[in-house]
């Protein structure tokens, strides 16, 4: 193998890891504030659809990004309303959002375009161009989100409060800070990042929306989040690792390995999932989630 093969592998790994990374950071913001979000998948999906539809209509990928982000934030606010204001069960709300997203994108897509839920293929400025080293703008936006997340969470007033609210909201409340406000802020940031993830899928990586095109990436992102122990830099490495596995899996399809023969496609495709299970089961040690994640804040009497 020569250098260009490795270079190609690196590039495709990066490309595959970007949606995971954006979704993983989205989950990081939400969960560090104490709101568990298994609706990453659904938010990515609506973002992917809205972005493709808007890019198609306007002919601009950036308008697509705006629409995708808007759609994901809207869904994030539904989750926020259910789990922060109404103190509902966060898992139930997340599941509902996932189901709603699958159904809604398929039905609306079919009604608008009549192509089995697909959006029309995007061309030219309706897709993100490669701007640097063969990668498009959302890739760099997502990569930039890593140090920004690290800095804001670790080094700023807002970050300190957000971390505190995910661990002990009562402490934040007694310090005279609004628990509700902080959690909504986190949920909105989560929506923005999901929007970025979804938009990249349909307007960057592919040239249009396909039904259910997220294919479980939102859940892999959650696994990566646990693996990264809810921290930004480890999230980057974890997501890249998953990206590498994905890329390798694609390359190994149909390749005959010495001593084994041709490996079934399904076995290769299962690799990232298998690795997730193994890693989560023991290799990484104990991952302790933010203490208050999953529980709505109710003032005690």
């Amino acid at each position, binding site marked *: 193998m020569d250098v260009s093969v490795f270079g190609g592998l690196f590039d495709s790994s990066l490309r595959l890891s970007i949606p995971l990374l954006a979704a993983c950071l989205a989950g990081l913001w939400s969960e560090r504030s104490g709101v568990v979000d298994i609706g990453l998948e659904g938010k990515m999906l609506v973002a992917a659809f809205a972005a493709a539809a808007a890019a198609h209509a306007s002919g601009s990928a950036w308008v697509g990004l705006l629409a995708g982000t808007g759609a994901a934030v809207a869904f994030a606010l539904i989750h926020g309303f259910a789990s922060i204001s109404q103190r509902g069960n966060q898992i139930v709300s997340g599941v509902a959002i996932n189901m709603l997203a699958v159904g809604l994108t398929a039905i609306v897509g079919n009604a608008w375009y009549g192509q089995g839920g697909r959006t029309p293929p995007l061309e030219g400025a309706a897709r993100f161009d490669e701007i640097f080293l063969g990668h498009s703008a959302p890739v760099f936006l997502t990569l930039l989100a890593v140090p920004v997340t690290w800095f804001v969470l670790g080094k700023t007033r807002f970050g300190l409060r957000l971390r*505190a609210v995910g*661990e002990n909201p009562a402490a934040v409340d007694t310090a005279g800070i609004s628990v509700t406000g902080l959690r909504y802020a986190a949920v909105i940031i989560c929506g923005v990042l999901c929007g970025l993830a979804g938009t990249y899928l349909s307007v960057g990586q592919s040239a249009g929306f396909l039904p259910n095109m997220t294919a479980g990436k939102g859940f892999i992102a959650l696994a990566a989040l646990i693996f990264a122990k809810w921290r930004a830099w480890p999230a980057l490495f974890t997501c890249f690792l998953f990206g590498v596995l994905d890329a390798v899996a694609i390359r190994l399809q149909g390749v005959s390995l010495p001593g084994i023969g041709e490996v079934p496609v399904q076995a290769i495709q299962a690799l990232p999932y298998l690795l997730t299970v193994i890693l989560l089961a023991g290799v990484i040690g104990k991952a302790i989630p933010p203490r208050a994640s999953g529980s709505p804040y109710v003032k005690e009497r």
Partner: protein
Amino acid sequence: MFPAIELKAVNKRFGAVHANKDVNLTVERGTIHGIVGENGAGKSTLMSILYGFYEADSGEIRVNGKPISIATPNDAISAGIGMVHQHFMLVEPLSVVENVMLGAEGGFTLRAGEAKVRAELARLAQDYGLEIDLDATVGELSVGLQQRVEILKALYRGADILILDEPTAVLTPAEADALFELLRALKAQGKTIILITHKLREIMAVTDRVSVMRRGEMVASLETKDTSPPELAEQMVGRRVLLHVEKSAREPGAPLLEVEGLSVIDNRGVLRVANASLTVHAGEIVGIAGVAGNGQSELLETLAGMRQQVLGKIRFEGRDIRFEEHNPHAMRKLGVLHVPEDRLRMGLVPAFPAFESAVLGFTDDPRLGPGPLLDHGRMIADLSAKMEAYDVRPPAPRLKSSKFSGGNQQKIVLAREIERNPKVLLVGQPTRGVDIGAIEFIHRRLIALRDAGVGILLVSVELEEIMNLSDRILTMCGGQITGERKAHETDEQDLGLLMAGVTERAA
């Protein structure tokens, strides 16, 4: 000069519960003011109103003579009111500095504020002896130090008036004394302190004035030097109560429960009980004194069969308990009954009606119904009789367990265990969160049981309770039994030293 705090006709309702009824309170500047009352008397509600956690339905609050409205904790903080909550409001994974800064960071990034916090905390450390490692993770500090962080938080925010809610519940006697020293030092600097407690000894030791609450009303406000614990207790309960239950001397009988070299590891792999040995004789109350979290709970749970020891032997009536029979069911069959520490988590099922909670652990008793069936009529009649004997209020067997007050829940659990004729009764925190009136009843009952020849192992973090009830006292610290005393040959200071781990040899 205006008083630091004046409350006038403050009212607060939670649904049907009138938690504060026309409460008036005046706290003079530069004094330590105690507020006592039973659980549910409305002390915490009143303080939550003062700290902006709840808003009063009606009434007036004046701070330094100025009427103000306190709608959020922020309003309270800017009025110079700080609060140290009973359950600390700390973020455990964060450092001391970060906890102190939270809500008062002093800028968009943390860096600028941090220098200020460090300088200010250094000054406070010097003024009041409040030294602490600023970079330590709060969750890894001892409870006493965590409380210090809470106090520092309030002082850093410029609190002039400091409210402390049950601050000594988690402290050793020595730590409590240190806290009182600190409160006196703060008072000398002109700070005003409101101390909420149910321990009358502390009121007498440290306060200038004391106000008593009963069922949402402020029933008395007295100069501490003009009152006495029995008077305060009477005001709290509304009738005369005996603070000390009389008990006659009694020679213990044969050894019932013997423990030799017991070591217990918890599910995180931490050694909780280390090489503990003890004996409980018939007709004797053995008290285990210690600050919460020093292995007493694990020891009790192991003896009840809820945990397995890794080393050591347990003998009952001279016979070794085999591994297979070391489980709660078999231990109960043998006559080792258990009143667990946490009645809401282990003693009863809060969502069950009382008559169902009252048979937990005994559901295979044929008297409760034929075969697999439970005869509700019989269960209800049975509990009705017990409720009368134990003065449970309201005497309503069908009421949900969670609807009873702490004292009445405890009586239901006690009745369930005691009426099964134990040979040995393991009792954890029998009066935690229980009113004074019910405490008296529970103490009498335990002593009657001892007089009837039952061996009782009592675990309590209330030193007074241990000293009142026990014939023999063991102290635990860090999982080890650090000392043994006859109850009439020791005092609080002596036990306090043992509880702090100062063993006989070192002393």
